[in-house]
């Protein structure tokens, strides 16, 4: 539904001279949490700047929260909270005053901004540390302060650029929980750019994958993972024979030593596996369904996808074919 979209772009293009940073992006980002993925140089930063209304688009159009990114940049920035990837805090200021000031920069009354700064710092877990100078904070505390700055005016959309960058495990977990909580109980939307697939998977329901300024894939993480389900078996004795037997039966097998992953294409795939094992006399010590992580999928897509826009729907329609459609010829793609 149109009303449920927080970001929508149509043929969005941004060029810096001859360099095309974003090429004809057609995106529909629904409410909730969405992960923005892509390798370095994919156009993530340009995309964020474009939807913040900070750079003019070369072509195409887009809306954020129903506001035009070409003409209503100020209003967009009033209604979203941006958490930058890099340091954006004055180390000589106390966190409470830094967060208060960030609220004042949005037009909040100083008294209200101070009250709200207390609330948001409490929310991000810095309640007892809020009168300390930011310079004395750990990386996790600085990240939390940046999040508090983004949340001070209770924005409808929070853009978090690498929120768990450089954090240790506990701080990272806390950041992820906070973002999840903001989406689930706060009913806010989050657009999270990250290279940590695990974090994106924990927070987000949807994803956008950019590659060389183009949309490589978008959709629900669940759907993306569903199309590539495999069965993992641990084999003892006769692994090679079993692999040959399964391949001969037309099953798609990936093998690493005694561990094999077989594409779960049909309901009776497990029966076929067991039958093959019985035929060749190999022992299957362990068998379970293997669910690929987002990272696996990301790497797989980046490896195989070519240079044309591809949505997850295309990928889902015919997984193996779709992966090869636009890939370079040496990778098995071409004119299918």
């Amino acid at each position, binding site marked *: 539904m149109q009303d449920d979209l927080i970001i929508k772009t149509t043929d969005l293009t941004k060029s810096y001279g001859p360099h095309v940073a974003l090429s004809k992006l057609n995106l529909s980002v629904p409410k909730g949490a969405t992960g923005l993925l892509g390798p370095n140089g994919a156009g993530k*930063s340009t995309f*964020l*700047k474009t939807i*913040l209304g*900070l750079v003019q688009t070369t072509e195409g159009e887009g809306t954020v929260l129903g506001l035009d990114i070409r003409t209503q*940049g*100020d*209003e967009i*920035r*009033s209604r979203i909270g*941006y958490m*930058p*990837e*890099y*340091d*954006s*805090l*004055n*180390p*000589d*200021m*106390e966190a409470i*005053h830094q967060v*208060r*000031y*960030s609220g*004042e*920069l*949005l*037009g*909040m*009354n*100083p008294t*209200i901004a101070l009250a*709200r700064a207390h*609330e948001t710092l409490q*929310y991000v*877990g810095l*309640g007892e540390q809020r009168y300390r100078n930011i310079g004395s904070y750990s990386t996790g505390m600085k990240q939390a302060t940046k999040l508090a*700055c983004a949340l001070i*005016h*209770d924005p409808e959309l929070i853009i978090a*650029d690498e929120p768990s960058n450089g954090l240790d495990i506990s701080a990272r977990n806390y950041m992820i*929980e*906070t973002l999840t*909580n*903001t989406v689930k*109980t*706060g009913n*806010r939307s989050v657009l999270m750019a990250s290279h940590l697939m695990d974090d994106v998977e924990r927070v987000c329901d949807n994803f956008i994958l950019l590659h060389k300024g183009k949309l490589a894939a978008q959709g629900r993480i669940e759907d993306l993972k569903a199309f590539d389900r495999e069965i993992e078996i641990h084999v003892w004795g006769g692994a090679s024979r079993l692999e040959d037997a399964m391949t001969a039966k037309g099953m798609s097998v990936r093998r690493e030593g005694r561990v094999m992953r077989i594409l779960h294409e049909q309901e009776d795939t497990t029966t076929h596996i067991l039958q093959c094992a019985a035929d060749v006399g190999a022992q299957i010590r362990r068998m379970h369904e293997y669910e690929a992580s987002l990272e696996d999928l990301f790497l797989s897509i980046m490896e195989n996808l070519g240079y044309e826009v591809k949505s997850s729907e295309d990928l889902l329609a015919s997984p193996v074919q779709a992966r090869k459609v636009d890939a370079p010829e040496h990778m098995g793609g071409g004119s299918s």
Partner: protein
Amino acid sequence: MSELGEVPKPMPVEFAAEAPVTGKVRLDAAWGSTEGDEDLTAASTTVGKSDGQIFKQQYKQWNGELNPRWMRNWAILRHHLLGIFKKGHRPWGIPIRLYLLVVFVASLSDVGMTLVSGLIGDSGLHSVWGVSRDNLYAHVLGFFPRNMLYYPVVAALLVGGVISEDRQHGTSALYFSRPITRFDYVAMKFISVAMIQGILILVTLALYYFAEIATMGRGWAWIIDTFPLFLATVFSALLLIFTYTSIGLSLSSVSNGKFFPGIALLSIILGTKVLAFISSNLFDREILYLLSPYDCLAHVGQAIIGTQPTYDQYSWTWSLASLVAMNGIALYVLSTRVSSMEVTRE
């Protein structure tokens, strides 16, 4: 008190010579005496353990309204100005604040002397320190000590980190990811720095003028006679503040720290002055004054206020043109550099 449920029926315990004396047996003997208490239930006063939650993360919504542009700009101005006086705003640093205080007090020297001369009725002292064309000029544009030790140093200290620190700490993202335009950002920073200098130069100038009126009992005729001079001095001061601020901020915008903009501003103001002075003495040519912001300001100030000109080889309009060019270049650099400040990474 919490019920722990029924105690299991105790096993019969046999006491015999060969029975080992273990803790278990002794406990069984003590607890289950098999004398009709099998149906008793055990009661414990121990409070059951529960997982408490010290901190409950709860998102609180806010339904307030955001104020318009002027309020956002006021926030930037307030942040920089109040930082001079109190905590919680821009941290200016103790040495800077102390120096500002010293300069403020030192700039009031002519005010103090005017008050003293008025109080003791010494006309000789008053003729030296009282309000006059030359003294008004000297309050703003006198080279030593004001434009050697006070105002350029103050400008250098103020502009040092105003923009460069936003680049260094990445705090520019805090501004530009909010509805703050680059123009508003620069304008408010410019006005903040200029206002602090204004407090030191213009406020002390006004106090000087009003001290003369108060202590010498000047009437309307004197005020009408001298007020244009006062306004001309105010205009010269504004020109000085504008020039020092624009050059200083442009240096701050190309830098990543405090030191370079400060020292570069001092070098430009004092270095060109020294260079022009040397050239003038060695070759009897004053053309290099056109490169010195201070000399150009002084030349234009002398012309506006009407004091005895000390730069008489060229017309003061050349100095004015030079000032316009200097400010134009500085503002161009400033606007270009601020336009290039990033939000996503710096």
